[in-house]
C-alpha cells in the first residue's frame, strides 16, 4: 500500500533529514516507527502524506506516485489542529467534499464523542480534541492513515485509552496505518511491525516483527521480550548517531 524506495530528503537549510530509506507497508498493516527525536521519522511521514517532496527516490501510495496531499491518505498530527470556530461535528466533516451528516455522525460515534458533537474545541479536553482529530481523519475512510506522534501530548491514561480506541477504529474498515511515535510501548501495543530509525540523517536501523495476538497484554512475557529488544535497538541507534549540538538542527520549513 505504501512504498518508499531509496528516499532521501534534504531541506533548503542544507540539512539531510533522511537518507536512502526503503520501506513498504502492506494493505491493512499497522507499522510503527520509533527513534530518537530529530531522526527524521516525522519527515518520512510527511513525505508519504505529500506534505514534503523527496529530494531523491520515490514514494508511492496504492501504486500511485505521491505528488502532493491526497484524499486517500488521512493524517493525524501531534496536535489536534481543530478549527477553533467549528463544532466537533463541523470539524469532523471538514474534509468531506460533500457534507454528509450520516457519515459524520458515524465517525464521531466511532471515537465515542456523540455527546459532544455540538461542542466547540475550547470546551474539549486534550484527549477529546485528539479523538475529534482522529474522527476527522477517518470520516473519508481513507485507505491509508498516517499518525504523527498522535498521543504524545496526552497523559498516560488518556493515551492508553486512545490506543485502544485506535485499534477499534482499525477494526472498523482496516486501513493501512503508519504510526510515528517515541513511545516504545505504544509501538508494541499497536503495530504488526516496528521500524527503529537512527539519525542523523535518518535511516532504518532495525525491524521488529511482532507476531503477538491483539489485544496485547503489557504484562505478558513475550511483550517484555519485545520491549527489551526495542530498547536495545533504540539504545544502539542513539549511540551510532548521537545528536550533538554541532550536527543537530531542526528542519526549517
Amino acid at each position: 500500500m505504501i512504498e518508499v524506495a531509496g528516499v532521501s530528503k534534504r531541506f533548503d537549510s542544507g540539512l539531510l533529514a533522511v537518507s536512502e530509506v526503503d520501506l513498504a507497508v502492506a494493505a491493512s498493516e499497522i507499522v510503527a516507527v520509533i527513534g530518537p527525536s530529530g531522526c527524521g521519522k516525522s519527515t518520512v511521514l510527511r513525505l508519504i502524506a505529500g506534505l514534503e517532496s523527496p529530494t531523491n527516490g520515490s514514494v508511492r501510495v496504492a501504486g500511485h506516485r505521491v505528488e502532493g496531499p491526497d484524499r486517500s491518505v488521512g493524517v493525524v498530527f501531534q496536535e489536534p489542529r481543530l478549527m477553533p470556530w467549528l463544532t466537533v461535528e463541523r470539524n469532523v466533516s471538514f474534509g468531506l467534499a460533500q457534507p454528509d451528516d450520516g457519515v459524520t455522525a458515524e465517525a464521531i460515534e466511532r471515537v465515542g464523542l456523540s455527546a459532544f458533537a455540538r461542542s466547540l474545541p475550547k470546551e474539549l479536553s486534550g484527549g477529546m480534541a485528539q479523538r475529534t482529530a482522529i474522527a476527522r481523519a477517518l470520516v473519508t475512510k481513507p485507505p491509508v492513515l498516517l499518525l504523527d506522534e498522535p498521543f504524545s501530548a496526552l497523559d498516560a491514561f488518556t493515551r492508553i485509552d486512545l490506543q485502544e480506541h485506535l485499534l477499534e477504529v482499525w477494526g472498523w474498515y482496516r486501513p493501512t496505518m503508519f504510526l510515528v511515535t517515541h513511545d516504545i510501548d505504544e509501538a508494541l501495543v499497536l503495530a504488526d511491525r516496528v521500524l527503529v530509525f537512527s539519525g542523523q540523517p535518518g535511516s532504518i536501523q532495525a525491524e521488529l516483527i511482532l507476531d503477538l495476538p491483539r489485544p496485547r497484554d503489557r504484562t505478558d512475557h513475550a511483550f517484555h521480550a519485545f520491549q527489551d529488544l526495542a530498547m536495545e535497538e533504540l539504545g544502539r541507534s542513539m549511540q551510532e548517531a548521537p545528536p550533538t549540538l554541532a550536527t543537530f538542527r531542526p528542519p526549517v520549513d
Partner: protein
Amino acid sequence: MTRLLAKPPRDRIDPGAVPSQRRKRVPRWAVALIVPIVIVALWEVGAVTGTISTRLIPAPSTIAATIGDLATGGDLLGHVVSTTTRVLAGFVLGALVATLLGAATGVSERFGTLFDPTLQALRNIPSIAWTPLFILWFGIFETSKVLMIALGVFFPVYLTFSGAIASVDRRLVEVGRVYGFGTTSMIRRILLPASLPTYVIGLRNGLGLGWMFVVAAEFLGASQGLGYLLVDGQQTGRPAVIIASIVMFALLGKVTDRLLSSAGARFTRWQDGFTREAIA
C-alpha cells in the same frame, strides 16, 4: 493497577466545572454610568454656585436645553443624518477596499511583496495632509469628504486584516493542504474565519478614525453636519452649541461602535479568551 489498565477512565468534561454561583450584582451598564454621572453632577453644582464660569463652560443643564432646542427648531436631526451618512459611506468604501487589498497581500506572498511596502509608506503620511489635494481634485462637496473619511478608515483596517491573515497558524493551513484545498477554499474555510476576530478589531479602529475624519472634512466648507455645527458655535460664540455637538459625536461614536462589536461578537464566540474575573 491491573484494574486501571483493564478499564481506564474515559476523559470527560468535569461536571463540577460549572461556574460558581455569583452574588447578584449591580448590572454592568449601571456601574459604567457612575463616573459620568458624578462628573456631570459636580459640573452642574460648580456652574450653579458660580465656581465655574458659565460664559465659557456652560452648565450641563444649559447644554441639555441647547440640544433640546436644536432638536426641535435647529435641525439637529439633519446635522446628525448628514454626518452619519458621510461616515458610513466613507467607512464602507474604505473598509471594502482595505479588506480586498488586505486579503490579497495577506494571502499571496507575491502580491504582498509587490504592494505592501508602498502601502506601508503611504500610511506614514498623516491622512489629513491629503485634504487640500482632495479638495482641489474632487471639490468641496460630498465626494472629497467621503474620500477623506475612506482614506482614514482604510489604513487601520488594511493593516490589521493583512497582518491577521498572514499570521494564521500554519498548522491549520496544513490541515487544509492535507484535504487538497485550493486557494479559494483555503481563504474561505481557514484564513478568513481564523482572522475574523482581529479583523473586527481593525474595523472598529477604522470606524473610530472615520468619526475623527468627518470632523476634519466638515471643518472645511460644509453647510450641514455636526462638524459644521462646531464651527458655527465657535463663530457665533455659543460654547453650548459646541459642547452639544461634541456630546452628539460621543453618542453616535459609541452607538456605532457598539453595533459593530456586537455584530462581530457573533463570529468570534469560539475564541478561547480569558475572563477578567480570572485574573483580577
